[in-house]
């Protein structure tokens, strides 16, 4: 395959472009999606025209609803949220309508919509501009939740989301947009629900997702002479790759779950529960969570740094569980 290093944003752009080229029923809706300073959607208007690439009013309920409706008539809409926090304005459409319609209709109606949303802290943007929130969507049965950590996954997973018959929320960490990685130029899809072992190890499993994968890799590097750490990128919260989780715990016997979302009732809690239920006999140490505290995100950069999960917090969690023989 023809591979070249491109950015996370360019990988997303390429997925959108290739899906729109192949399928005229793929459309893109969102605020300022045709703006030339937005790298993920750059050039799409010029190539596909304003009927398919349209700027919406600031009416998240209405344009997400429009996306759901068009998807019910089997179009393939991609709706963009500037930030995931803004999706909270449209919770009825996302959590009542989008998530439940397929089930409630007894399978008579499908909603193959993809919502793209950028997310994440680290830019001192304050409490309504920095959240992760994927656990909130994962909580509601009926939406697949996809959180890529690198350009290769971003492209393959997004193409998968767009072509898949189910609704997804596809989450893009704003600090990853400039990250470069090798990405095939061809069209390819990656399955939803398959985690990836990004670093093999024997002593401690670090199960994580999104931007935190990079912090976990750095933590593992830092400890490389002391603890052999296995880092697993879940890639999707729903479906969750339980097999990958359990088989890694079988090997290491110790688990640290790392996640940028709020700790309570979130990704960390879910992974921990699965491990406790299904890998209990392999566990040698308590399971530790490294997540955002159950507190809104502070504006001040020093406070935000204190607040966010990071390499140092992961290192100390790994050290704690490694102490158990």
């Amino acid at each position, binding site marked *: 395959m023809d591979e070249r290093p491109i950015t996370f944003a360019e990988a997303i752009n390429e997925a959108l472009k290739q899906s729109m080229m192949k399928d005229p029923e793929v459309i893109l809706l969102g*605020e*300022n999606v045709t703006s030339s300073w937005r790298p993920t959607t750059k050039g799409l208007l010029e190539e596909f025209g304003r009927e398919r*690439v*349209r700027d919406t009013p600031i009416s998240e309920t*209405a344009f997400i609803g429009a996306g759901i409706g068009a998807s019910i008539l089997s179009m393939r809409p991609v709706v963009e949220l500037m930030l995931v926090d803004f999706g909270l304005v449209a919770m009825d459409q996302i959590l009542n309508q989008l998530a439940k319609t397929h089930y409630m209709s007894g399978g008579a109606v499908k909603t193959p919509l993809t919502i793209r949303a950028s997310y994440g802290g680290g830019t001192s943007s304050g409490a309504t501009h920095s959240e992760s929130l994927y656990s909130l969507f994962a909580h509601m049965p009926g939406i697949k939740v996809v959180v890529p950590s690198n350009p290769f996954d971003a492209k393959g997973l997004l193409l998968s989301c767009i072509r898949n018959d189910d609704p997804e929320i596809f989450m893009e960490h704003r600090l990853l947009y400039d990250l470069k990685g090798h990405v095939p130029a061809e069209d390819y899809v990656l399955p939803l629900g398959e985690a990836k072992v990004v670093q093999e190890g024997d002593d401690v499993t670090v199960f994580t997702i999104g931007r935190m994968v990079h912090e976990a890799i750095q933590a593992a590097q830092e400890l490389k002479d002391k603890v052999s750490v296995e880092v697993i990128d879940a890639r999707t919260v729903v479906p969750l790759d339980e097999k990958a989780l359990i088989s890694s715990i079988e090997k290491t016997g110790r688990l640290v779950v790392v996640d940028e979302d709020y700790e309570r009732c979130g990704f960390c809690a879910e992974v921990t529960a699965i491990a406790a239920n299904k890998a209990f006999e392999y566990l040698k140490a308590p399971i530790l969570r490294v997540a955002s505290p159950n507190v*809104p995100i502070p*504006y001040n950069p020093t*406070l935000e740094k204190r607040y966010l999960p990071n390499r140092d917090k992961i290192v100390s969690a790994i050290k704690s569980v490694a102490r158990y023989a």
Partner: protein
Amino acid sequence: MVEGAKVKNEKLLEIYRTMVRIRTFEKATRELIKKGVIPTRMGFYTGQEAVAAGVCAVLKETDQIGSTHRPLGHLIAKGCDLKKLMSEICGKETGFNKGKAGPYHIFDPSVGALGANGIVGGSVPMVLGYALAHQLRGDGGVAVAFFGEGASNQGGVLESMNLASVWNLPLIFVCENSSPDVQTMLGHKINYPQISVDKISSRALGFGMPGDTYEGWDVMKVYRAAFEAVERARSGSGPTLLEFKVHQLTGNIEGSLEFFEDESMWDPIRRFRRELMFKGALNEEEDRWIRTSEELKVKEAVEYAIGSPEPNVEEALRGVFVEE
């Protein structure tokens, strides 16, 4: 008050001073962003000063406002302390909200400045509640909801117009339409229109309240329209929708420090200064004095903010609930 009635020179100069204060404060804020002292980007109000200053000149400290992602004009016009304001934007312990809010979430209840808001349209429904409290207490207070033309399309904003009208609340909806000629969003020329009518104020009819559109670069027009709407609200006659056309002078988010010459025709400060001088209400020397003294105040605020301590890092984890 009717069109053409006399407004005292003192009041005019107070309004002018507020406009100069906002402009000066924002310029200093831009400089601090450039220097990296302020750790974020934010929305600015430059070019819209007449709206905040004209509307808030009619309000009392006991009235409330809800603001937006361009909050500095509204907050300053409502009387927020400049030192605490600059400290908050710099993320300092001495800020209104201990450095936890930042520019998009500042609240100063002491002067009724109930909130900058990071969610477009997010402040508007809450303003209903400020107005409801005044109505139920019978204290004659009013509340003002500031929002942009983009926000005017949020469900929550439209729902609020209906509720304010059916409950006959003492509330003034102030829509600042920053793209009155060409429809734009955050400076980007959008490829589909977001507004289907010429005047956003024409929506008032559908909600059963009065509404009209005014030139927001002419502060006397703003003041007069606001005066009438506030009188109406205070006397129990219900809400009004005011639309003010404005031009954001220095770009949307950060913009540059200087603005382009061809924008100056929309500059509300330049325009008002000329008017005041023509009236004989202001001369060159007085103008210089106003500018210098406002610059001094802003400089003091900047120094105060820079000299203020960082919040204790553990503050990051405190304050979710009242009782912890």
